[in-house]
């Protein structure tokens, strides 16, 4: 064995050389460089001579002169993190709907399909009527709905899985620009849809028709669900509502709900032994009891893993969306930690201070990683055995 090791060592070095050289040059060296920078007042505009200043950058960020901006971006990041559990719960629900426990017979499926095709036939008749009356938009929406139903019934859950995954797969600047226009307060379809709904609800329930409902201003509003004032961050009724942060949060849920998390949940559900469902059914367990006793224990490790990964991504993220949709505004309410790093580093050129921010972000994610590792190793071993 030792002989083999010696013989293969040169080969191993040859295979490793390109990758190791790159990782050292562009990952390992930069990390230590960033660490060193964080202890200097390095500033590309040369406001002061370069010097080692110890932990002063961290002091300035955490309770010194930079702290208001820093904590504001930290709170904005935390606010967006509200979307993480919502998105994960949504992914789980979608996965459960797409992969319901198997049972019943094939003949039954055929009967079900007939009923569905019949219902969809009626639906298409409705679409034709809408078209004849000249309501093209309504006809389009109804037609789309029934097309999705028919395609879903014909292709099965793969059809929905594909559709749900699409926003995640294509997410990027183009979709952020798309959402910026969807959120337009006057001509955007979201507010158009909301005002349509409100009008009709008011028509049905006469009591509330007097109340004038104000539509959210979305990306140009500092309102939020915690009612935080944009500068002082203290709660105030005046700022309660839906604003830029909520807009980004909702879009984030739309982007991630059907993404990798859903696929991981689907894989996790596939690993639950079918016999357990059968015995649960024999024991007469209800839906909720089956979920809690059979499904959830198998999904808990996956959920934990997803939670860690998503939390890490959340504390580093938010820059791209905010840069494209709001440029950090209004009143700096969409500046996340990552965005703050960009502003300090690449707009104000204060590299020392920016490196300190990057180290704080790293330490936050490190906490999640360590938690994930403690738990993840156990999970990993289990995966290999099964």
């Amino acid at each position, binding site marked *: 064995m030792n002989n083999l*090791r010696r013989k293969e060592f040169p080969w191993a070095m040859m295979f490793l050389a390109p990758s190791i050289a790159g990782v050292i040059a562009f990952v390992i060296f930069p990390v230590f460089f960033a660490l060193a920078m964080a202890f200097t007042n390095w500033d590309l505009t040369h406001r002061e001579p370069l010097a080692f200043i110890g932990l002063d950058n961290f002091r300035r960020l955490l309770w010194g002169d930079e702290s208001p901006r820093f904590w504001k971006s930290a709170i904005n990041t935390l606010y967006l993190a509200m979307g993480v559990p919502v998105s994960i719960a949504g992914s789980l629900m979608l996965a459960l709907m797409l992969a319901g426990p198997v049972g019943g017979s094939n003949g039954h*499926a055929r009967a079900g399909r007939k009923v569905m095709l019949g219902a969809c036939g009626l639906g298409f008749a409705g679409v034709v009527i809408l078209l004849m009356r000249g309501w093209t938009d309504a006809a389009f929406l109804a037609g789309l709905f029934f097309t999705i139903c028919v395609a879903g019934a014909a292709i099965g859950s793969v059809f929905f899985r594909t559709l749900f995954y699409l926003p995640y797969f294509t997410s990027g600047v183009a979709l952020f620009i798309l959402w910026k226009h969807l959120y337009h307060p006057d001509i955007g379809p979201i507010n158009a849809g909301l005002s349509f709904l409100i009008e009709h609800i008011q028509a049905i329930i006469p009591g509330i028709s007097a109340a004038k409902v104000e539509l959210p201003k979305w990306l140009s509003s500092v309102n939020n669900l915690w009612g935080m004032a944009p500068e002082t961050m203290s709660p105030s009724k005046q700022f309660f509502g839906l604003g830029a942060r909520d807009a980004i949060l909702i879009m984030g849920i739309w982007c991630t709900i059907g993404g990798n998390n859903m696929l991981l949940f689907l894989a996790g559900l596939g690993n639950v032994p079918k016999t357990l469902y059968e015995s649960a059914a024999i024991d007469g367990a209800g839906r909720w009891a089956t979920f809690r006793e059979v499904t959830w224990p198998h999904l808990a490790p996956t959920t934990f893993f997803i939670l860690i990964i998503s939390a890490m991504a959340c504390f580093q993220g938010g820059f791209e969306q905010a840069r494209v949709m709001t440029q950090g505004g209004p009143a700096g309410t969409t500046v996340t930690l990552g965005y703050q790093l960009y502003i300090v580093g690449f707009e104000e050129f204060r590299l020392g201070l920016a490196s300190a921010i990057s180290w704080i972000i790293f330490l936050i994610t490190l906490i999640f990683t360590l938690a994930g590792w403690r738990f993840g190793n156990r999970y990993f071993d289990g995966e290999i055995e099964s």
Partner: protein
Amino acid sequence: MTARESYFNPSSRSTAKSLIRLIVLALIAMVMGLPFFWMVLTSLKPFAEAEQTHLIPKQLQRDNYSVVLNLKSPREPGQDKLNIHFGRWYFNSIFIASWVTLLQLITSAMAAYAFSRLHWPGRDKVFLTYLSTMMIPGLMLMIPNYLIMVKLQLVNTYSGLIIPAAFSAFGTFLLRQFMLSIPTSLDEAAQMDGASPWQIFTEIILPLSRPGIITLAIFTFLGNYASFFWPLIMIKDSWLYTLPIGMLTFDSTFGRQTHLLMAAAVMNVAPLIVLFVLLQKHLVRGVQLKRP
């Protein structure tokens, strides 16, 4: 597979319930899909109609696409051709993402082979170091790497975008996991016949790792096609913009021209949708393989 059966035969065994499930799923699919449909429909509207909220264009204006590609002047009077290079950005993005994908596959596959198949002292320690670099946030590397690029005079070049992205600890990890699942009896037999590690790598391991390589290729290509932060700080010259950066400037200069922006967005997203539909199977398997 059983997807279809499981979908029509929920435990409840009742057709009504599976019909309700279908309707709920279809409603969610509407919410997920409508932004895309709105994007396509708006991209076909004339300017005046894009300012209104109806969905279906009363008058189709397919010119929007050629206007964005700079082949035609906008219909609205008094306007010249847009001063953007959309076609060039398209090329840049695909060119850069392809190069990064190719290089990253080569470096990762070679390293993965050394980590999974060859025996050498300290192998596991080095691999653990590799793994631990995966938890370093990309944000942290931006400033030092930018300074390195300044030193190497690669700012505002293709190489500056391609070279730092050509190495990946994650790719190495993914392919190593995949190669570990290939039975060792194959390369042992080849070794008996006197094949060198390089021959074993190119003739046995690489062909057998194809599914893993395809998965990594998709993710790498996708990640670099959509890459934003790094090109944003690296590229100053509008001829060298990638699509995301180009889209950003397009949006900030022509923000009111919703119909043109949506035409650009459709063209931006279209290759991804094609890629996705073609490679869906690999992708789903890949994600499930990605679990550490």
